[in-house]
Protein backbone atom coordinates (compact mmCIF):
# COMPACT_ATOMS: atom_id res chain seq x y z
CA UNK A 1 0.00 0.00 0.00
CA UNK A 2 2.72 2.47 0.94
CA UNK A 3 4.54 1.86 -2.37
CA UNK A 4 1.39 2.61 -4.36
CA UNK A 5 0.69 5.63 -2.17
CA UNK A 6 4.16 7.10 -2.73
CA UNK A 7 4.05 6.47 -6.46
CA UNK A 8 0.65 8.15 -6.75
CA UNK A 9 1.79 11.23 -4.84
CA UNK A 10 4.83 11.44 -7.10
CA UNK A 11 2.74 11.07 -10.23
CA UNK A 12 0.37 13.87 -9.17
CA UNK A 13 3.35 16.19 -9.27
CA UNK A 14 5.21 14.79 -12.27
CA UNK A 15 2.04 15.27 -14.32
CA UNK A 16 0.23 18.63 -14.34
CA UNK A 17 -2.83 17.22 -12.58
CA UNK A 18 -1.72 17.91 -9.02
CA UNK A 19 -0.76 21.49 -9.87
CA UNK A 20 -3.96 22.12 -11.82
CA UNK A 21 -6.12 20.80 -9.01
CA UNK A 22 -4.36 22.80 -6.32
CA UNK A 23 -4.16 26.01 -8.34
CA UNK A 24 -7.81 25.83 -9.37
CA UNK A 25 -8.91 25.06 -5.83
CA UNK A 26 -6.84 27.88 -4.33
CA UNK A 27 -8.11 30.31 -6.98
CA UNK A 28 -11.81 29.52 -6.72
CA UNK A 29 -11.83 29.24 -2.93
CA UNK A 30 -10.10 32.63 -2.72
CA UNK A 31 -12.82 34.20 -4.88
CA UNK A 32 -15.46 32.53 -2.80
CA UNK A 33 -13.85 33.68 0.45
CA UNK A 34 -13.50 37.25 -0.76
CA UNK A 35 -17.06 37.55 -2.02
CA UNK A 36 -18.71 35.77 0.92
CA UNK A 37 -16.70 36.85 3.94
CA UNK A 38 -14.28 39.71 3.28
CA UNK A 39 -16.63 41.82 1.20
CA UNK A 40 -19.35 41.72 3.85
CA UNK A 41 -16.92 42.23 6.68
CA UNK A 42 -18.16 39.14 8.53
CA UNK A 43 -16.30 36.42 10.40
CA UNK A 44 -18.78 33.82 9.19
CA UNK A 45 -17.39 31.45 6.59
CA UNK A 46 -20.42 29.24 5.92
CA UNK A 47 -21.13 30.88 2.55
CA UNK A 48 -17.70 29.96 1.31
CA UNK A 49 -17.90 26.41 2.63
CA UNK A 50 -21.25 25.93 0.90
CA UNK A 51 -19.86 27.13 -2.41
CA UNK A 52 -16.79 24.95 -2.05
CA UNK A 53 -18.90 21.83 -2.42
CA UNK A 54 -19.90 22.89 -5.94
CA UNK A 55 -16.23 23.56 -6.72
CA UNK A 56 -15.40 20.05 -5.49
CA UNK A 57 -17.87 18.49 -7.87
CA UNK A 58 -15.95 20.04 -10.75
CA UNK A 59 -12.42 19.53 -9.42
CA UNK A 60 -12.46 16.08 -7.83
CA UNK A 61 -13.11 14.26 -11.12
CA UNK A 62 -9.89 15.86 -12.38
CA UNK A 63 -8.07 14.49 -9.38
CA UNK A 64 -9.41 10.95 -9.67
CA UNK A 65 -10.02 10.43 -13.38
CA UNK A 66 -6.70 8.74 -14.10
CA UNK A 67 -6.31 6.66 -10.93
CA UNK A 68 -7.57 3.36 -12.32
CA UNK A 69 -8.27 4.00 -15.99
CA UNK A 70 -4.70 4.97 -16.84
CA UNK A 71 -3.33 1.79 -15.27
CA UNK A 72 -5.69 -0.29 -17.33
CA UNK A 73 -4.93 1.58 -20.52
CA UNK A 74 -1.12 1.42 -20.16
CA UNK A 75 -1.33 -2.17 -18.91
CA UNK A 76 0.57 -1.15 -15.80
CA UNK A 77 -2.18 -2.84 -13.81
CA UNK A 78 -0.45 -6.07 -14.82
CA UNK A 79 2.42 -5.02 -12.64
CA UNK A 80 0.19 -4.12 -9.68
CA UNK A 81 -2.11 -7.11 -9.89
CA UNK A 82 0.70 -9.65 -10.23
CA UNK A 83 2.66 -8.17 -7.32
CA UNK A 84 2.26 -9.72 -3.88
CA UNK A 85 -0.21 -7.08 -2.68
CA UNK A 86 -3.93 -7.34 -2.11
CA UNK A 87 -6.40 -5.39 -4.23
CA UNK A 88 -7.58 -3.58 -1.10
CA UNK A 89 -4.05 -2.27 -0.50
CA UNK A 90 -3.76 -0.96 -4.05
CA UNK A 91 -7.12 0.85 -3.92
CA UNK A 92 -6.43 2.20 -0.43
CA UNK A 93 -3.01 3.51 -1.51
CA UNK A 94 -4.55 5.34 -4.43
CA UNK A 95 -7.36 6.72 -2.30
CA UNK A 96 -5.03 7.99 0.41
CA UNK A 97 -2.77 9.68 -2.16
CA UNK A 98 -5.70 11.51 -3.75
CA UNK A 99 -7.01 12.38 -0.28
CA UNK A 100 -3.66 13.84 0.77
CA UNK A 101 -3.59 16.09 -2.30
CA UNK A 102 -7.17 17.07 -1.49
CA UNK A 103 -6.25 17.94 2.12
CA UNK A 104 -3.37 20.03 0.76
CA UNK A 105 -6.03 21.89 -1.23
CA UNK A 106 -8.62 22.47 1.48
CA UNK A 107 -5.98 23.35 4.08
CA UNK A 108 -6.07 26.79 2.50
CA UNK A 109 -9.43 27.43 4.18
CA UNK A 110 -7.60 27.47 7.51
CA UNK A 111 -5.37 30.22 6.11
CA UNK A 112 -8.50 32.22 5.32
CA UNK A 113 -9.61 31.78 8.92
CA UNK A 114 -6.28 33.16 10.05
CA UNK A 115 -6.82 36.13 7.70
CA UNK A 116 -10.17 36.77 9.35
CA UNK A 117 -8.64 36.55 12.82
CA UNK A 118 -6.55 39.60 11.91
CA UNK A 119 -9.79 41.63 11.92
CA UNK A 120 -11.91 39.95 14.57
CA UNK A 121 -11.94 36.73 16.53
CA UNK A 122 -13.50 33.99 14.35
CA UNK A 123 -15.49 31.13 15.81
CA UNK A 124 -12.78 28.50 15.64
CA UNK A 125 -14.89 25.54 16.64
CA UNK A 126 -17.34 26.25 13.81
CA UNK A 127 -14.50 26.64 11.33
CA UNK A 128 -12.85 23.42 12.40
CA UNK A 129 -16.23 21.69 12.12
CA UNK A 130 -16.62 23.11 8.62
CA UNK A 131 -13.17 21.91 7.71
CA UNK A 132 -13.86 18.38 8.98
CA UNK A 133 -17.14 18.32 7.08
CA UNK A 134 -15.41 19.40 3.88
CA UNK A 135 -12.70 16.77 4.38
CA UNK A 136 -15.36 14.08 4.89
CA UNK A 137 -17.47 15.01 1.88
CA UNK A 138 -14.27 15.14 -0.15
CA UNK A 139 -13.28 11.64 0.97
CA UNK A 140 -16.65 10.33 -0.16
CA UNK A 141 -16.39 12.15 -3.51
CA UNK A 142 -12.87 10.86 -4.09
CA UNK A 143 -14.05 7.30 -3.46
CA UNK A 144 -16.87 7.85 -5.98
CA UNK A 145 -14.34 9.23 -8.49
CA UNK A 146 -11.98 6.27 -8.05
CA UNK A 147 -14.88 3.88 -8.49
CA UNK A 148 -15.92 5.62 -11.73
CA UNK A 149 -12.32 5.52 -12.91
CA UNK A 150 -12.19 1.76 -12.40
CA UNK A 151 -15.13 1.33 -14.78
CA UNK A 152 -13.40 2.56 -17.92
CA UNK A 153 -10.04 2.74 -19.67
CA UNK A 154 -10.69 6.23 -20.93
CA UNK A 155 -9.81 9.13 -18.64
CA UNK A 156 -12.27 11.54 -20.23
CA UNK A 157 -15.13 9.07 -19.90
CA UNK A 158 -14.06 8.46 -16.32
CA UNK A 159 -14.12 12.19 -15.54
CA UNK A 160 -17.53 12.63 -17.15
CA UNK A 161 -19.11 9.69 -15.30
CA UNK A 162 -17.76 10.86 -11.97
CA UNK A 163 -19.00 14.37 -12.69
CA UNK A 164 -22.49 13.04 -13.42
CA UNK A 165 -22.45 10.74 -10.38
CA UNK A 166 -21.36 13.55 -8.06
CA UNK A 167 -23.99 15.96 -9.36
CA UNK A 168 -26.62 13.25 -8.87
CA UNK A 169 -25.47 12.61 -5.29
CA UNK A 170 -25.49 16.34 -4.65
CA UNK A 171 -28.98 16.79 -6.08
CA UNK A 172 -30.68 13.74 -4.56
CA UNK A 173 -33.08 15.88 -2.49
CA UNK A 174 -34.23 17.75 -5.58
CA UNK A 175 -34.55 14.51 -7.49
CA UNK A 176 -36.59 13.07 -4.61
CA UNK A 177 -38.99 16.01 -4.75
CA UNK A 178 -39.68 15.42 -8.43
CA UNK A 179 -39.96 11.62 -8.47
CA UNK A 180 -43.63 10.61 -8.70
CA UNK A 181 -43.72 8.59 -5.51
CA UNK A 182 -47.27 7.39 -5.89
CA UNK A 183 -47.40 6.36 -9.56
CA UNK A 184 -48.11 2.70 -8.77
CA UNK A 185 -50.75 3.73 -6.28
CA UNK A 186 -52.46 5.76 -9.01
CA UNK A 187 -52.39 2.85 -11.43
CA UNK A 188 -53.90 0.44 -8.89
CA UNK A 189 -56.02 2.76 -6.74
CA UNK A 190 -58.55 0.31 -5.30
CA UNK A 191 -56.41 -2.46 -3.86
CA UNK A 192 -54.62 -2.27 -0.54
CA UNK A 193 -50.88 -1.78 -0.09
CA UNK A 194 -50.25 -5.51 0.35
CA UNK A 195 -52.02 -6.58 -2.84
CA UNK A 196 -50.48 -3.66 -4.73
CA UNK A 197 -47.03 -4.90 -3.76
CA UNK A 198 -47.82 -8.51 -4.60
CA UNK A 199 -49.17 -7.58 -8.05
CA UNK A 200 -46.18 -5.34 -8.83
CA UNK A 201 -43.67 -7.96 -7.78
CA UNK A 202 -45.46 -10.68 -9.72
CA UNK A 203 -45.33 -8.57 -12.90
CA UNK A 204 -41.62 -7.81 -12.41
CA UNK A 205 -40.79 -11.46 -11.76
CA UNK A 206 -42.74 -12.56 -14.82
CA UNK A 207 -41.01 -9.99 -17.04
CA UNK A 208 -37.55 -10.87 -15.69
CA UNK A 209 -38.19 -14.58 -16.21
CA UNK A 210 -39.43 -13.92 -19.75
CA UNK A 211 -36.32 -11.88 -20.63
CA UNK A 212 -34.08 -14.47 -18.97
CA UNK A 213 -35.47 -17.43 -20.86
CA UNK A 214 -36.24 -15.76 -24.19
CA UNK A 215 -33.25 -13.46 -24.76
CA UNK A 216 -30.38 -15.39 -23.25
CA UNK A 217 -29.64 -16.75 -19.83
CA UNK A 218 -27.46 -14.13 -18.23
CA UNK A 219 -26.86 -13.53 -14.56
CA UNK A 220 -27.04 -9.76 -15.23
CA UNK A 221 -30.73 -10.09 -16.08
CA UNK A 222 -31.43 -11.76 -12.74
CA UNK A 223 -29.51 -9.13 -10.78
CA UNK A 224 -31.21 -6.32 -12.71
CA UNK A 225 -34.58 -7.95 -12.13
CA UNK A 226 -33.87 -8.22 -8.43
CA UNK A 227 -32.97 -4.53 -8.20
CA UNK A 228 -36.12 -3.52 -10.10
CA UNK A 229 -38.10 -5.76 -7.75
CA UNK A 230 -36.69 -3.95 -4.72
CA UNK A 231 -37.23 -0.47 -6.15
CA UNK A 232 -40.73 -0.99 -7.51
CA UNK A 233 -41.62 -2.99 -4.40
CA UNK A 234 -40.72 0.04 -2.33
CA UNK A 235 -42.78 2.31 -4.56
CA UNK A 236 -45.75 -0.05 -4.36
CA UNK A 237 -45.60 -0.69 -0.63
CA UNK A 238 -44.76 2.74 0.69
CA UNK A 239 -44.25 5.24 -2.13
CA UNK A 240 -44.12 8.25 0.18
CA UNK A 241 -40.87 6.89 1.67
CA UNK A 242 -38.95 7.33 -1.60
CA UNK A 243 -38.34 11.11 -1.43
CA UNK A 244 -37.40 10.72 2.22
CA UNK A 245 -34.82 8.03 1.49
CA UNK A 246 -33.36 10.05 -1.39
CA UNK A 247 -33.17 13.08 0.88
CA UNK A 248 -31.30 11.03 3.49
CA UNK A 249 -28.78 9.94 0.86
CA UNK A 250 -28.29 13.46 -0.51
CA UNK A 251 -24.72 14.66 -0.04
CA UNK A 252 -25.83 18.27 0.11
CA UNK A 253 -28.38 17.66 2.84
CA UNK A 254 -25.73 15.84 4.88
CA UNK A 255 -23.06 18.44 4.29
CA UNK A 256 -24.95 21.66 4.82
CA UNK A 257 -25.32 20.96 8.54
CA UNK A 258 -21.56 21.20 8.97
CA UNK A 259 -21.53 24.70 7.45
CA UNK A 260 -24.05 25.85 10.06
CA UNK A 261 -21.67 24.68 12.75
CA UNK A 262 -23.64 21.52 13.58
CA UNK A 263 -21.37 18.55 14.00
CA UNK A 264 -23.66 15.55 13.63
CA UNK A 265 -21.91 12.24 14.12
CA UNK A 266 -24.42 10.46 11.87
CA UNK A 267 -23.51 12.78 8.99
CA UNK A 268 -19.81 12.18 9.57
CA UNK A 269 -20.40 8.42 9.61
CA UNK A 270 -22.53 8.71 6.48
CA UNK A 271 -19.66 10.20 4.47
CA UNK A 272 -17.15 7.75 5.90
CA UNK A 273 -19.35 4.79 5.03
CA UNK A 274 -20.01 6.20 1.56
CA UNK A 275 -16.24 6.33 1.01
CA UNK A 276 -15.79 2.78 2.28
CA UNK A 277 -18.66 1.47 0.16
CA UNK A 278 -17.33 2.99 -3.06
CA UNK A 279 -13.77 1.84 -2.38
CA UNK A 280 -15.13 -1.64 -1.71
CA UNK A 281 -17.04 -1.50 -5.00
CA UNK A 282 -13.80 -0.49 -6.76
CA UNK A 283 -12.09 -3.58 -5.36
CA UNK A 284 -15.02 -5.67 -6.59
CA UNK A 285 -14.74 -4.18 -10.08
CA UNK A 286 -11.03 -5.07 -10.23
CA UNK A 287 -11.81 -8.53 -8.89
CA UNK A 288 -14.56 -9.06 -11.42
CA UNK A 289 -12.31 -8.05 -14.29
CA UNK A 290 -9.96 -10.83 -13.21
CA UNK A 291 -12.76 -13.37 -13.39
CA UNK A 292 -14.29 -12.12 -16.61
Amino acid sequence: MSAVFRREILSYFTSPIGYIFLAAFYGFSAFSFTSNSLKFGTTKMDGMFQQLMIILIVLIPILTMRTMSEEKKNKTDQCLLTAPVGLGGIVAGKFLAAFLIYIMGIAVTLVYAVVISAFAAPDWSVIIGNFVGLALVGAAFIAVGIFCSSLTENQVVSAVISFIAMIALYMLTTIGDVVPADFIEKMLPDVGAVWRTVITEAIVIALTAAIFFLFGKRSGVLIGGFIVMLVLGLFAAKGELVPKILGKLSFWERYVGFTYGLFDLSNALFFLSAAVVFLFLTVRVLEKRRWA
Partner: protein
Amino acid sequence: MIEVQNLSKHYGDKKAVDNISFKAEDGEILGFLGPNGAGKSTTMNILTGYISSTSGKALIDGTDILEDPIKAKSKIGYLPELPPLYLDMTVKEYLNFIYDLKKCKLPRNTHLKDICNLVKIDHVYKRLIKNLSKGYKQRVGLAQALVGNPNVLILDEPTVGLDPKQIIEIRTLIKKLGRNHTVILSSHILSEVQAVCDKIIVINEGKIVADDTEDNLSRKLSSDHKLIVRIEGDQKKVTDLIDSLANVEKVDIGAKHGDDCWEYRIESKEGTDIRRDLFIHCAQKGFVILEMRSSELSLEDIFLRLTMGKSIDGGED
Protein backbone atom coordinates in the same frame (compact mmCIF):
# COMPACT_ATOMS: atom_id res chain seq x y z
CA MET B 1 8.68 -25.25 -9.76
CA ILE B 2 5.51 -24.71 -11.72
CA GLU B 3 2.80 -27.25 -12.04
CA VAL B 4 -0.30 -26.75 -14.15
CA GLN B 5 -3.15 -29.21 -13.97
CA ASN B 6 -6.07 -29.27 -16.43
CA LEU B 7 -6.11 -25.51 -16.78
CA SER B 8 -8.92 -23.97 -18.82
CA LYS B 9 -10.01 -20.42 -19.52
CA HIS B 10 -13.19 -19.65 -21.40
CA TYR B 11 -14.26 -16.27 -22.69
CA GLY B 12 -17.95 -16.88 -23.29
CA ASP B 13 -18.02 -19.70 -25.82
CA LYS B 14 -14.42 -19.21 -26.88
CA LYS B 15 -11.92 -21.48 -25.23
CA ALA B 16 -8.73 -19.44 -24.95
CA VAL B 17 -7.00 -22.19 -22.98
CA ASP B 18 -8.42 -25.67 -23.16
CA ASN B 19 -7.49 -28.18 -20.50
CA ILE B 20 -3.71 -27.94 -20.54
CA SER B 21 -1.30 -29.56 -18.08
CA PHE B 22 2.45 -29.28 -17.84
CA LYS B 23 5.26 -29.07 -15.33
CA ALA B 24 8.50 -27.11 -15.14
CA GLU B 25 11.09 -28.22 -12.61
CA ASP B 26 13.59 -26.01 -10.79
CA GLY B 27 16.47 -24.93 -12.98
CA GLU B 28 14.55 -25.69 -16.12
CA ILE B 29 13.73 -23.35 -18.99
CA LEU B 30 10.38 -24.16 -20.50
CA GLY B 31 9.57 -22.76 -23.91
CA PHE B 32 6.04 -21.95 -24.92
CA LEU B 33 5.75 -21.97 -28.66
CA GLY B 34 2.68 -20.97 -30.55
CA PRO B 35 1.28 -18.53 -33.11
CA ASN B 36 -0.45 -15.30 -32.11
CA GLY B 37 -3.66 -15.98 -30.26
CA ALA B 38 -2.70 -19.53 -29.33
CA GLY B 39 -3.27 -18.90 -25.62
CA LYS B 40 0.32 -18.32 -24.54
CA SER B 41 -0.29 -14.96 -22.90
CA THR B 42 -3.56 -16.12 -21.37
CA THR B 43 -1.80 -19.08 -19.76
CA MET B 44 0.92 -16.80 -18.44
CA ASN B 45 -1.61 -14.31 -17.12
CA ILE B 46 -3.32 -17.13 -15.25
CA LEU B 47 -0.02 -18.40 -13.82
CA THR B 48 0.79 -14.96 -12.48
CA GLY B 49 -2.64 -14.39 -11.02
CA TYR B 50 -3.54 -11.48 -13.33
CA ILE B 51 -6.64 -13.31 -14.51
CA SER B 52 -8.30 -16.35 -13.08
CA SER B 53 -8.78 -19.71 -14.70
CA THR B 54 -12.23 -21.11 -15.44
CA SER B 55 -11.13 -24.47 -14.08
CA GLY B 56 -7.95 -26.29 -13.21
CA LYS B 57 -5.03 -25.58 -10.93
CA ALA B 58 -1.78 -23.65 -11.20
CA LEU B 59 0.81 -24.34 -8.50
CA ILE B 60 3.85 -22.13 -8.02
CA ASP B 61 6.37 -23.94 -5.80
CA GLY B 62 3.45 -25.93 -4.48
CA THR B 63 1.26 -22.89 -3.69
CA ASP B 64 -2.04 -22.57 -5.54
CA ILE B 65 -2.24 -19.15 -7.17
CA LEU B 66 -5.97 -18.92 -6.39
CA GLU B 67 -5.79 -20.17 -2.82
CA ASP B 68 -2.87 -18.12 -1.55
CA PRO B 69 -2.27 -15.50 -4.26
CA ILE B 70 -0.01 -13.24 -2.20
CA LYS B 71 2.40 -16.04 -1.29
CA ALA B 72 2.41 -17.46 -4.82
CA LYS B 73 2.89 -14.03 -6.42
CA SER B 74 5.85 -13.26 -4.20
CA LYS B 75 7.68 -16.13 -5.91
CA ILE B 76 7.04 -14.92 -9.45
CA GLY B 77 8.75 -12.36 -11.61
CA TYR B 78 6.58 -11.54 -14.60
CA LEU B 79 7.40 -9.74 -17.81
CA PRO B 80 4.11 -9.32 -19.70
CA GLU B 81 3.83 -8.94 -23.45
CA LEU B 82 3.86 -5.18 -23.06
CA PRO B 83 6.25 -4.21 -20.25
CA PRO B 84 4.15 -2.57 -17.50
CA LEU B 85 6.13 0.65 -17.27
CA TYR B 86 5.10 3.97 -15.79
CA LEU B 87 6.31 6.29 -18.49
CA ASP B 88 6.45 9.36 -16.25
CA MET B 89 9.02 7.80 -13.92
CA THR B 90 12.75 7.44 -14.26
CA VAL B 91 14.23 3.94 -14.34
CA LYS B 92 15.53 4.53 -10.85
CA GLU B 93 12.18 5.63 -9.45
CA TYR B 94 10.41 2.80 -11.22
CA LEU B 95 12.70 0.04 -9.95
CA ASN B 96 12.54 1.46 -6.44
CA PHE B 97 8.75 1.47 -6.69
CA ILE B 98 8.75 -2.18 -7.79
CA TYR B 99 11.16 -2.95 -4.96
CA ASP B 100 8.72 -1.47 -2.45
CA LEU B 101 5.70 -3.00 -4.14
CA LYS B 102 7.18 -6.49 -3.93
CA LYS B 103 8.16 -5.85 -0.29
CA CYS B 104 11.66 -6.93 -1.18
CA LYS B 105 13.99 -7.69 1.74
CA LEU B 106 17.32 -7.73 -0.13
CA PRO B 107 19.70 -4.76 0.36
CA ARG B 108 18.13 -2.13 -1.85
CA ASN B 109 20.99 -0.37 -3.56
CA THR B 110 23.23 -3.34 -4.27
CA HIS B 111 20.32 -5.49 -5.41
CA LEU B 112 19.01 -2.90 -7.87
CA LYS B 113 22.52 -2.21 -9.08
CA ASP B 114 23.15 -5.91 -9.72
CA ILE B 115 19.96 -6.16 -11.76
CA CYS B 116 20.85 -3.08 -13.79
CA ASN B 117 24.26 -4.54 -14.55
CA LEU B 118 22.71 -7.83 -15.51
CA VAL B 119 20.30 -6.38 -18.08
CA LYS B 120 22.67 -3.52 -18.98
CA ILE B 121 20.53 -0.53 -18.16
CA ASP B 122 22.90 1.17 -15.71
CA HIS B 123 23.71 4.01 -18.11
CA VAL B 124 20.02 4.92 -18.53
CA TYR B 125 19.29 4.55 -14.80
CA LYS B 126 18.41 8.21 -14.30
CA ARG B 127 16.48 8.77 -17.51
CA LEU B 128 12.72 8.98 -17.92
CA ILE B 129 11.26 5.70 -19.18
CA LYS B 130 9.17 7.70 -21.67
CA ASN B 131 12.34 8.66 -23.52
CA LEU B 132 13.87 5.18 -23.78
CA SER B 133 13.89 3.11 -26.96
CA LYS B 134 11.78 -0.01 -27.32
CA GLY B 135 14.74 -2.26 -26.60
CA TYR B 136 15.58 -0.45 -23.39
CA LYS B 137 11.96 -0.44 -22.29
CA GLN B 138 11.94 -4.20 -22.78
CA ARG B 139 15.07 -4.49 -20.64
CA VAL B 140 13.58 -2.33 -17.90
CA GLY B 141 10.59 -4.67 -18.03
CA LEU B 142 12.92 -7.61 -17.56
CA ALA B 143 14.70 -5.81 -14.72
CA GLN B 144 11.33 -5.29 -13.06
CA ALA B 145 10.66 -9.03 -13.22
CA LEU B 146 14.03 -9.77 -11.62
CA VAL B 147 13.52 -7.48 -8.62
CA GLY B 148 13.33 -9.53 -5.44
CA ASN B 149 15.13 -12.44 -7.09
CA PRO B 150 11.99 -14.58 -7.50
CA ASN B 151 12.27 -18.35 -7.96
CA VAL B 152 10.03 -18.41 -10.97
CA LEU B 153 10.39 -16.16 -14.00
CA ILE B 154 7.60 -15.89 -16.51
CA LEU B 155 8.62 -14.02 -19.62
CA ASP B 156 6.12 -13.29 -22.37
CA GLU B 157 8.00 -12.87 -25.66
CA PRO B 158 11.06 -11.33 -24.00
CA THR B 159 13.01 -10.61 -27.18
CA VAL B 160 10.31 -8.78 -29.14
CA GLY B 161 11.49 -5.41 -30.37
CA LEU B 162 15.17 -5.96 -29.67
CA ASP B 163 17.94 -5.75 -32.23
CA PRO B 164 19.88 -8.93 -33.10
CA LYS B 165 22.73 -8.15 -30.74
CA GLN B 166 20.36 -7.49 -27.86
CA ILE B 167 18.43 -10.65 -28.68
CA ILE B 168 21.59 -12.71 -28.27
CA GLU B 169 22.40 -10.90 -25.03
CA ILE B 170 18.96 -11.48 -23.59
CA ARG B 171 18.99 -15.13 -24.62
CA THR B 172 22.34 -15.61 -22.92
CA LEU B 173 20.97 -13.88 -19.86
CA ILE B 174 17.89 -16.09 -19.79
CA LYS B 175 20.05 -19.19 -20.09
CA LYS B 176 22.14 -17.97 -17.21
CA LEU B 177 19.05 -17.26 -15.12
CA GLY B 178 17.68 -20.68 -16.00
CA ARG B 179 20.40 -22.37 -13.98
CA ASN B 180 18.91 -21.37 -10.65
CA HIS B 181 15.39 -20.22 -11.56
CA THR B 182 12.41 -21.87 -13.13
CA VAL B 183 11.85 -19.96 -16.34
CA ILE B 184 8.87 -20.07 -18.64
CA LEU B 185 9.23 -18.08 -21.80
CA SER B 186 6.92 -17.77 -24.73
CA SER B 187 7.74 -17.10 -28.32
CA HIS B 188 6.41 -17.58 -31.78
CA ILE B 189 9.90 -18.10 -33.18
CA LEU B 190 11.00 -21.74 -33.31
CA SER B 191 14.71 -21.01 -33.50
CA GLU B 192 14.54 -18.82 -30.40
CA VAL B 193 12.88 -21.49 -28.32
CA GLN B 194 15.32 -24.07 -29.64
CA ALA B 195 18.27 -21.87 -28.75
CA VAL B 196 17.24 -21.26 -25.16
CA CYS B 197 14.92 -23.89 -23.78
CA ASP B 198 15.42 -27.29 -22.17
CA LYS B 199 11.87 -28.29 -22.86
CA ILE B 200 9.35 -27.09 -25.41
CA ILE B 201 5.61 -27.03 -25.29
CA VAL B 202 3.84 -26.25 -28.52
CA ILE B 203 0.43 -24.75 -28.07
CA ASN B 204 -2.19 -23.92 -30.64
CA GLU B 205 -5.80 -22.78 -30.25
CA GLY B 206 -5.54 -23.26 -26.51
CA LYS B 207 -4.44 -26.87 -26.68
CA ILE B 208 -1.03 -28.44 -26.19
CA VAL B 209 0.04 -29.88 -29.50
CA ALA B 210 3.39 -31.23 -28.39
CA ASP B 211 5.20 -31.43 -25.08
CA ASP B 212 8.69 -32.69 -25.52
CA THR B 213 12.34 -31.98 -24.93
CA GLU B 214 13.97 -29.93 -27.61
CA ASP B 215 15.97 -32.76 -29.23
CA ASN B 216 13.02 -35.01 -29.81
CA LEU B 217 10.95 -32.20 -31.13
CA SER B 218 13.73 -31.11 -33.46
CA ARG B 219 14.00 -34.59 -34.89
CA LYS B 220 10.28 -34.76 -35.35
CA LEU B 221 10.37 -31.43 -37.09
CA SER B 222 13.48 -32.01 -39.15
CA SER B 223 13.10 -30.97 -42.73
CA ASP B 224 16.23 -32.33 -44.39
CA HIS B 225 14.15 -33.75 -47.21
CA LYS B 226 13.36 -30.21 -48.34
CA LEU B 227 16.40 -28.42 -49.69
CA ILE B 228 17.11 -25.03 -51.09
CA VAL B 229 20.16 -25.21 -53.35
CA ARG B 230 21.90 -22.57 -55.43
CA ILE B 231 23.70 -24.11 -58.41
CA GLU B 232 25.72 -22.52 -61.18
CA GLY B 233 25.15 -24.03 -64.60
CA ASP B 234 22.64 -24.33 -67.41
CA GLN B 235 19.18 -24.33 -65.92
CA LYS B 236 17.71 -27.04 -68.11
CA LYS B 237 20.60 -29.45 -67.60
CA VAL B 238 20.64 -28.92 -63.84
CA THR B 239 16.93 -29.53 -63.56
CA ASP B 240 17.25 -32.75 -65.55
CA LEU B 241 20.14 -33.84 -63.38
CA ILE B 242 18.24 -33.26 -60.15
CA ASP B 243 15.17 -34.99 -61.56
CA SER B 244 17.25 -38.02 -62.39
CA LEU B 245 18.40 -38.49 -58.78
CA ALA B 246 16.80 -41.23 -56.73
CA ASN B 247 14.03 -40.23 -54.29
CA VAL B 248 13.51 -36.72 -55.72
CA GLU B 249 9.84 -35.91 -55.90
CA LYS B 250 9.72 -32.34 -57.10
CA VAL B 251 12.00 -29.55 -58.27
CA ASP B 252 10.99 -25.91 -58.40
CA ILE B 253 13.11 -23.23 -59.93
CA GLY B 254 13.41 -20.15 -57.79
CA ALA B 255 15.02 -16.78 -58.31
CA LYS B 256 17.97 -16.14 -60.62
CA HIS B 257 21.19 -15.10 -58.93
CA GLY B 258 23.68 -13.73 -61.43
CA ASP B 259 24.61 -15.27 -64.80
CA ASP B 260 23.64 -18.87 -65.19
CA CYS B 261 22.90 -19.35 -61.52
CA TRP B 262 19.55 -20.34 -60.15
CA GLU B 263 18.02 -21.33 -56.88
CA TYR B 264 16.27 -24.71 -56.83
CA ARG B 265 13.81 -26.00 -54.30
CA ILE B 266 14.08 -29.73 -54.10
CA GLU B 267 11.72 -32.02 -52.31
CA SER B 268 12.58 -35.64 -51.80
CA LYS B 269 10.71 -38.48 -50.17
CA GLU B 270 10.34 -38.04 -46.43
CA GLY B 271 13.09 -39.65 -44.40
CA THR B 272 15.57 -39.64 -47.27
CA ASP B 273 18.62 -37.45 -47.52
CA ILE B 274 19.76 -36.62 -51.05
CA ARG B 275 22.45 -34.10 -50.15
CA ARG B 276 25.40 -36.45 -50.76
CA ASP B 277 23.99 -37.73 -54.07
CA LEU B 278 23.33 -34.22 -55.20
CA PHE B 279 26.82 -33.07 -54.36
CA ILE B 280 28.55 -35.96 -56.12
CA HIS B 281 26.46 -35.76 -59.28
CA CYS B 282 26.81 -31.99 -59.58
CA ALA B 283 30.54 -32.27 -59.07
CA GLN B 284 30.82 -34.93 -61.78
CA LYS B 285 28.95 -32.78 -64.28
CA GLY B 286 30.92 -29.67 -63.33
CA PHE B 287 27.97 -27.77 -61.82
CA VAL B 288 29.05 -25.73 -58.85
CA ILE B 289 26.91 -25.76 -55.72
CA LEU B 290 27.17 -22.31 -54.22
CA GLU B 291 24.76 -22.83 -51.37
CA MET B 292 22.72 -25.65 -49.84
CA ARG B 293 20.38 -25.49 -46.89
CA SER B 294 17.33 -27.23 -45.49
CA SER B 295 14.22 -25.17 -45.79
CA GLU B 296 12.96 -23.98 -42.43
CA LEU B 297 9.52 -24.87 -41.28
CA SER B 298 7.07 -22.13 -40.57
CA LEU B 299 4.94 -22.39 -37.47
CA GLU B 300 1.95 -23.43 -39.51
CA ASP B 301 3.93 -26.35 -40.90
CA ILE B 302 4.96 -27.36 -37.43
CA PHE B 303 1.42 -27.46 -36.20
CA LEU B 304 0.21 -29.27 -39.25
CA ARG B 305 3.04 -31.72 -38.95
CA LEU B 306 2.56 -32.28 -35.25
CA THR B 307 -1.15 -32.65 -35.53
CA MET B 308 -1.25 -34.61 -38.78
CA GLY B 309 2.14 -36.30 -38.64
CA LYS B 310 3.06 -36.01 -42.29
CA SER B 311 4.87 -33.72 -44.63
CA ILE B 312 3.42 -30.45 -45.72
CA ASP B 313 4.04 -28.31 -48.75
CA GLY B 314 5.21 -24.76 -48.85
CA GLY B 315 7.50 -24.61 -45.83
CA GLU B 316 10.25 -22.58 -47.38
CA ASP B 317 8.76 -19.10 -47.43
